[in-house]
């Protein structure tokens, strides 16, 4: 037997559109930068910078994607992240950074359990519940900070926090190793797509050079994405997450504990938001009570750009991260190239709607459904060899 790939589908707009969009945008911005005589837009430093700026939204977006796959919704992530940051900044001077970070994430998880329990056991729509916690948790942040900015003033603790967030990590060898793993896997399993990914990663690493470093959050984002992707792609838990979102009743009657999976998604979402909040608090060693306001919408926009269905049952964390990169490339491009910040929101919104339109309209019904499923863990298409 040989494995065959539907190339037209794999490289069609619907499956790969978000990658094309990112490439086109980067090329466009590079051309503008070149024509204006600005420094190379596609320098490794600037690209690393974009990923760094996108990392918090990316981390929350990966968890949000899992959430959307199970068919639920979490509007409260940005408020939860702000709460975690406030807990961290508030407690760090007295109990030290590691304990405070733990407390922050536990606080976030508590909100997630509350959200999930109310949605699952009281039966209120997730949109309404998390809209409530979005407001309430933001209120809690105001109460905790007394409406003022908090700051960590103990230098040793501040040092630890900055180190956690701003350490530069050399990734040359790690990226090469990852590329080699992908290529080996591709050769072993005969999967050309893995080979392509391996080549891209390897080429980027070689172009960036041995001394290239990225900020720690980029590494955290990469590790988290990789872990969630692997769980969704290779494990029974992953399949069941898709099943719960695809048809909860059929999943329940197949003996799957639907409550546990849905509650788990809320916990994951809030935990990821908590971690993002910790990173945010560490970035400045301070927290402003209105910090991250509105970020939940960017997070959801990233997931939608990545092709995640709001109806559940389909979605890909990798493409959500690409979606986040697309949004932050826009922001970064407008700032770096000074294209007029006023247009930024207009264009971002248009991009999100255009993406959703492509996912909805692109391809006929059958191809559309196949494509959404293709992001679910499944055996590659197999054809009988003569």
């Amino acid at each position: 037997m040989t494995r065959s790939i539907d190339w037209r589908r794999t490289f069609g707009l619907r499956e790969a559109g978000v990658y094309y969009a990112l490439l086109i945008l980067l090329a466009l911005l590079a051309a503008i930068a070149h024509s204006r005589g600005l420094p190379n837009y596609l320098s490794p430093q600037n690209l690393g910078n974009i990923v760094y700026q996108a990392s918090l939204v990316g981390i929350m977006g990966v968890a949000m994607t899992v959430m959307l796959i199970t068919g639920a919704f979490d509007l409260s992530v940005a408020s939860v992240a702000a709460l975690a940051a406030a807990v961290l900044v508030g407690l760090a001077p007295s109990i030290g950074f590691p304990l405070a970070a733990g407390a922050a994430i536990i606080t976030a998880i508590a909100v997630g359990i509350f959200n999930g329990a109310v949605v699952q056991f009281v039966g209120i729509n997730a949109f309404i519940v998390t809209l409530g916690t979005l407001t309430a948790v933001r209120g809690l942040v105001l109460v905790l900070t007394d409406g003022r900015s908090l700051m960590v003033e103990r230098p040793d603790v501040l040092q630890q926090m900055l180190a956690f967030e701003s350490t530069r990590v050399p990734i040359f060898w790690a990226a090469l190793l990852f590329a080699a793993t992908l290529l080996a896997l591709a050769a072993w399993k005969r999967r050309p797509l893995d080979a392509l990914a391996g080549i891209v990663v390897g080429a980027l690493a070689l172009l960036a050079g041995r001394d290239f470093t990225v900020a720690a959050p980029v590494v955290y984002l990469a590790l988290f994405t990789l872990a969630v992707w692997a769980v969704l792609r290779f494990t029974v838990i992953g399949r069941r997450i898709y099943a719960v979102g695809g048809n909860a009743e059929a999943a329940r009657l197949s003996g799957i504990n639907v409550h546990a999976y849905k509650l788990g998604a809320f916990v994951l979402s809030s935990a990821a938001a908590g971690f993002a909040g910790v990173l945010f608090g560490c970035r400045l060693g301070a927290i402003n009570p209105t910090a991250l306001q509105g970020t939940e919408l960017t997070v959801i926009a990233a997931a939608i750009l990545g092709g995640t269905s709001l109806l559940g049952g389909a979605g890909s964390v990798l493409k959500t991260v690409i979606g986040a990169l697309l949004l932050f490339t826009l922001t970064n491009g407008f700032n770096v190239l000074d294209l007029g910040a006023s247009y930024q929101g207009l264009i971002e919104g248009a991009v999100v709607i255009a993406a959703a339109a492509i996912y909805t309209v692109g391809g006929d019904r059958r191809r559309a459904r196949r494509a959404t499923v293709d992001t679910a863990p499944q055996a590659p298409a197999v054809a009988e060899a003569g």
Partner: protein
Amino acid sequence: MVEAPLLQLHGLEKVWPNGTAALRGVDLTVHTGSVHGLLGANGAGKSTLIKVLAGAIPASGGDITWRGQTVRWTNPRAARAGGIATIYQHIPLVPTLSVLENMLLEQAGGWRIDRAARDRAATVARSLGDPFDLDAIVGDLPIGTRQMVAVAQGLMSDPALLIMDEPTASLAGDEREQVYRTIRRLAGEGRAVLFVSHFLDEIVALTDEVTVLRDGRAVLGARTADLDEAAIAAAIAGRAVTVLERVERQRSTGEALLDVRNLTSPGKLAPTSFSATGGEIVGIAGMLGSGRSELLHAIFGADPAARGSVLVGGEQIGREPAAAVAAGVALVPEDRAAQGFISGMTIAENIALPHDGWLIAPRREHDAAIAAIDDLAIKAPDADALVGELSGGNAQKVVIAKWLTPRTRVLLLDEPTAGIDIGARTDILRLIRRLADQGLAVLLISSEFEELLAVTDRILVLRDGAIVAEVDPATIDEAGLIQLASGTQSRTEIAA
């Protein structure tokens, strides 16, 4: 012939954009005031034909002659205006609106409800025998009454032809009677009815003429009086089908494999106790609402309100589906699409759903799916076909295949043959027998009592959430079973 036919199709064709031919030249004639039965296996083209007649999709070739004139409807509104009303199988009513508002959905005009419209609706309702309250919310009505609301909605435009797509598929006993009476009344008023059904006895009893579709062609068109069930069934299947015959099976007399003790659910199920041995097929007969599905859901732990105990192989199982599955209990639910399979997943993934473990083994799952496709004769291109794209019978086989693991010892089947054509139905009944022979205890619910009589070892009769009788299928006939289940001594005959 006294008058020209109301509707005449000549060489009607429909080819989908992807090249699939759904209709390959259908001839069909419907006369005013007659009931015309339309039959065919799943995928024979019935639904496509109905959609073409309703103006929902255009025909690719052939002629439609309506009241002597060639017509070509481009949208459903035109067909409605022309005098054809269509009631689809999955009743498209708005559950949150009242009966009246559902009936008035297509009405134009400014006011939400005006006096004249209400009077018109009341007249239509009266002509149907006032089966419902005009101000009731549709979502609160039982499904049989909703079917009547759909009929009433169709009648609001005063159609000359009413098309009904499997109006009785999800109904039981007296609810079907209501539909039959309505169809006769409509024919009596001089309207024509095009009646689609899987049930041969209905067709024979109700219709004046019959058209059978197979592979997009009309293979039989005749007066019903000249036909019998066997002839129609043969035309549907394209081969002579043997009517299900009862096979006396070796009775197993071993220990109870499934033991249900005082299982009860408030408002749904009275305390119920019974047991089943391995190798035994226990039929559960009951009308809709008798608590049939509720009983299976309670056994499976899918009803959180249920109390009592269920023992499998002598060990009590937990009260949740996961525990039941772990103990070897499997449920094939009534509503395939909503409860049975995940339409966006492949055959292989659906079959692998209940499997435990940590890592997905694509190759093994694929092989298991291929084995199931061969074993159960599932008609699918390959193991990666989406279950949502299979026909009803094949999707049902996938749902059953999901549970065919060594772990499964008790199989709960809730209407496994509903909405499935004769060929696939026979396959499934044979499979049930084979599984029992392999030592499984099987509980089988079916509205087709002849199926129960043919395949089960004994039958529990359920009424109002309680077992009211246990009968030996060898000693009772369908009419007797219907009497027990409906609790009436004399049942209104289908043949009027």
